[in-house]
């Protein structure tokens, strides 16, 4: 080794050591400010399913009941811990809470950093809720042991993704979620499961390839600016990026999230994956994993690349709107119930994307809320479709008729869920969609107009499907009786239905927790995208207050101008009031 190279090496070593020390100091400091609690709720939340998976692995494989009970109990335990997290969560605080940071893989800069804020809280709750339900509603008869293990590992991966504050840790969980889903589809799916599973894996993996390169690039930029190699999202947010670099990184991240969500036109894997997956798989895929994509968009695209977000918002808004229309039109011609729900999901995720990139307090809060809402009613829809399949052995709309006579309760539940999905007032779908549309209308009127068309189309295809399946005379050639919902099936759907109605009637407690975080995020976006240069002779405090009050910058100006029109319509429904005026929040935070 040459002396020059040796010096280089030594210098690098010293730098790395210094960087580790600094990274550790910063993360621990952040942990303290966010109020680290004695009990590591979040780490427990992530590790309980993993531990349960290991326990199930050593159980004798013929003890089906024991295995199922263990899986169910573990996921119930997770739900309990999640409830405790919800209880401990301080409404009104926009930052990360219950943060725990531990260096894990120092040489490459990865840390075990978990935290929860208003944006991730309800996704965590949704995951914690859907898994036990999926265990009851979708327990597979073939080889329950392996199925349970994969489901528990998947739960760990999903919770880990939502809770990670370290981008690389997020990526690890994000990627790790692929493997269980792949095996669940490939092992327990319907006819075309093999190709669907492979397509799903390869598409998502390809998207993630860009994400990984993007993450590393960002961390390397950050390291070259600060000397600290870290993947902590809170520190990476302060990286200075030139315009083109920011846009390139934004695109690298967005491609991965767009595939995962899916966002039009990266959705081509999703109909077959949703169609071929077993019911539990479909529920988790559409209910939770789709949210990994939209959550990634809101958390990382908006949080890390504010400048590029503002620049490219029209592009993403257009893709979202295109997804809404395209999803609705294609859903309208589907004959297969599961594919229909898959395309309607595409349309609903389009709404979430539009809301996220309209960049107003209402629309982003609406998008976050809509993520949870969509998870609830899509899961319910998939369970209902699975119940029909169990009785009739088909997903084909043309071969189902007049089920209402035989199963009126199921029909009633089905129409309730469909109504929630369409966005009928009083049910949860309405609140999210309304907030998204209202917020979008303020800043991006024409996209909102296009999105509204999607709402109408959703009513068309979902009601049409309901009519086909439940109304009309019973099929005379069909001799099998169609059984009404059993108690067990009712128990599966009950929590979902309760939440669908509850969130539709009284979303305030949820929005109270979402809005501060969304406001904090948007303030950050706005501050980075439109840096305020302090004017000479003006006191510093006044500058910052004015900057905060001008939250939304151009956005806020438009908000003020269009506010009157929006409030008059919004006020009538009552859901506008639950939103704290975000300018006020920001001003209070800065003073």
């Amino acid at each position, binding site marked *: 080794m040459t002396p020059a*190279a040796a010096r280089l*090496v030594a210098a690098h070593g010293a730098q790395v050591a210094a960087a580790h020390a600094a990274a550790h100091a910063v993360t621990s400091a952040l942990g303290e400010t966010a109020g680290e609690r004695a009990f590591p709720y979040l780490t427990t939340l992530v590790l309980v399913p993993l531990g349960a998976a290991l326990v199930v692995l050593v159980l004798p494989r013929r003890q089906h009941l024991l295995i199922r009970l263990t899986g169910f109990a573990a996921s119930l335990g997770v739900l309990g811990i999640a409830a405790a997290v919800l209880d401990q969560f301080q409404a009104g605080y926009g930052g990360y809470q219950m943060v725990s940071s531990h260096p*894990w893989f120092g040489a*490459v800069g990865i840390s075990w950093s978990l935290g929860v804020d208003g944006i991730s809280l309800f996704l965590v709750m949704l995951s914690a809720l859907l898994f036990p339900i999926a265990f009851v509603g979708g327990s597979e*008869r073939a080889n329950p042991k392996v199925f349970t293990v994969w489901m528990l590992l998947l739960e760990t991966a999903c919770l880990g993704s939502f809770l990670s504050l370290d981008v690389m840790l997020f990526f690890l969980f994000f990627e790790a979620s692929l*493997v269980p889903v792949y095996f669940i589809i490939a092992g327990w799916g319907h006819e075309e499961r093999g190709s669907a599973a*492979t397509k799903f894996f*390869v598409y998502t993996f390809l998207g993630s390839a860009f994400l*990984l390169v993007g993450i590393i*690039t960002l961390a390397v930029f950050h390291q070259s600016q600060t000397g600290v190699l870290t993947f902590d999202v809170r520190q990476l947010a302060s990286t200075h990026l030139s315009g083109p670099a920011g846009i390139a990184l934004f695109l690298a991240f967005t491609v991965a999230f767009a595939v995962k969500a899916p966002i039009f036109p990266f959705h081509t894997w999703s109909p077959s994956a949703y169609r071929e997956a077993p019911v539990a798989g479909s529920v988790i895929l559409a209910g939770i994993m789709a949210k990994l994509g939209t959550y990634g968009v809101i958390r990382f695209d908006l949080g890390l690349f504010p400048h590029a977000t503002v620049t490219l918002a029209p592009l993403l808004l257009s893709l979202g709107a295109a997804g809404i229309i395209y999803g609705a039109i294609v859903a309208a011609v589907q004959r297969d119930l599961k594919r229909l729900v898959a395309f309607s999901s595409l349309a609903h995720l389009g709404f979430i994307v539009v809301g996220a990139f309209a960049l107003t307090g209402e629309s982003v809060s609406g998008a976050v809320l809509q993520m949870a809402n969509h998870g609830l009613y899509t899961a319910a829809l998939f369970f209902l479709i699975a119940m029909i399949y169990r009785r009739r052995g088909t997903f084909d709309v043309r071969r189902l008729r007049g089920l209402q006579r035989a199963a009126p309760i199921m029909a009633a539940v089905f129409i309730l869920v469909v109504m929630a999905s369409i966005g009928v007032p009083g049910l949860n779908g309405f609140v999210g969609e309304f907030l998204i549309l209202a917020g979008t209308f303020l800043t991006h009127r024409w996209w909102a107009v296009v999105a509204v068309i999607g709402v109408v189309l959703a009513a068309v295809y979902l009601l049409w499907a309901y009519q086909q399946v439940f109304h009309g005379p019973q099929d005379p050639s069909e001799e099998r009786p169609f059984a009404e919902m059993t108690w067990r099936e009712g128990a599966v759907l009950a929590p979902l239905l309760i939440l669908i109605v509850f969130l539709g009637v009284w979303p305030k407690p949820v929005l109270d927790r979402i809005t501060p975080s969304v406001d904090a995020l948007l303030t950050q976006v706005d501050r980075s995208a439109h840096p305020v240069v302090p004017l000479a002779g003006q006191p510093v405090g006044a500058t910052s207050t004015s900057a905060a009050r001008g939250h939304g910058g151009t956005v806020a100006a438009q908000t003020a101008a269009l506010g009157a029109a929006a409030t008059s319509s919004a006020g009538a429904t009552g859901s506008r009031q639950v939103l704290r005026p975000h300018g006020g929040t920001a001003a209070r935070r800065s003073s």
Partner: protein
Amino acid sequence: MRSAVPGLAGAQIHSVLSLLHPHLLAASTITLPAVDYTTILPELILLGGSLVLLLVSSVTTRQLPTETYAAATIGLGTASLIVSLFLWRDITARGPLSAIANSVDIDGFAVLFLVLSSCLVIVGALAAAGYLRREGIGGCEYYVLICVSAGGAMLMASANDLILIFLGLEILSIPLYVMSGMDQRREGSGEAAMKYLVLGAFSSAIFVYGIALIYGATGSTNLAEIAAFLAHNVILHNGVLLGGMGLLLVGFSFKVAAVPFHFWAPDVYVGAPTPATGFMAAIAKVGAFAALLRVFVSSLPTLRSDWQPVVWVIAVLTLSLGAIVAVAQRNVKRMLAYSSINHAGFILLGLQAATTRGVAGSLYYVFTYALLVVGSFAVVAIVGGRGDQGHDLSNYRGLARRQPVLATTFAVLLLAQAGAPFTTGFFAKLYVLEAAIDNHSYALAVIAMVSAAVAAFFYLRVVLTMFGAPETAGEEAVEHLSVLVPQPAGPAPLLADSVTLGSGAVATMTMSETRAALVADPRGTDDLGPTPLARLGVSPWVATALLCTAGATVLFGVWPQELVDFAHQATLLF
């Protein structure tokens, strides 16, 4: 090295030269350098041990069982591993050693490869024992070849002189030629050996010519002296130097099977006995990458701007061709051959970056890859069945049901190769990517990751085949079953129970599929010949090898810190 002119001829040359130039007289007195044997102790253990093995096998009148030799080889490997770890302790305490006229360098970099080669000897012997017994290949030759080959790789890793690197390269390669031709019953094996030998000899010649040119340009074959010469002198017309460098690169590229010097690899990988393929794929890359990294990063760093673009092109070709061609393969062995080409591309990423981070990344990658590939081929050897022929994808159909643990292990190894999180494969890819991006090679990083996504497809195809239901066995198989099994009164529960459902994921068990699962896929049975796969046991030796490799994969995937620190420190002591 230069002054060491052999005795008799030396005397004659001496008299001639002394007439020409008085200075040469002084130079020609032969002084042997002091040999510090501890620095080459691991090599000595393996090479000496293999000689003892040969002796023992020739003096024993009755042929000893193959396991005896395997145990002895494992003993040798362990001994060299322990010595290597002691060397590691030494150099962390006292800094790197340079010995035997500076031709051997024992630094962190070298010791990491010493440790790795020792591990490969152990795992390679474990993986081969079951195979050799099954195929009835007795004798100690296979184990002797493993030891010698690993000794060559160690020499390459610790060599600080181009001549010594060449020696190591030959010691590494010649046993590999023999190993690939060991299965005399198959034509493919002999063909592989012949191809490998001819092309290998050709590449060795190119390599030696490269050494000669470099010597001509810089006046030394010692790596440190070359680096010092280049650091202090500016060569105006450096065509000779660049030519030499290019030829060295070609020689190394051949050994690591980088595109466009990869043509031998698929045929040789397929033709060689399967455990030999695994060992060969690992040890050749270990030795060649060790020397490649040392020569280019530490000896020719001043020419970085010249060789980096070339390596860039080679890396891109290697990554993409390896991944794309592998997709088209139905023979799992051939598929793994192309996948190992793809891996070579990833390791080249670290070289292309030419930074400490890059070298550390490459080291880590080589380490994880070597263990993964030995493990993977050990599974392939088991599934191949007697005669080592059943390597078609169809032979893997329903493996999860027949041998769930084996299938799960293979799935772990393949997923790690694909770079799934929480395995060593992921961190290896992450590490080299960080290095590439740190070096602003964004395009290369993106190409690498896209190739990884393509690669994921063919790894998953194998996994899917193992865990999926048999596709071709339909009604026919069910009818077949009624002949084989007397129909009991209540067939459903009994049949379902009789199927082995293990810890692997198992496909939906509709009745017909369950029945079909009892009967192996007709095509697979033909390939297998007389021994049905279901009855093939896994020998405890191979099981240990798989446990080691798959265990290390997961263990270091969840706690990567130790191994990464090792790789990182190795480059610091470099």
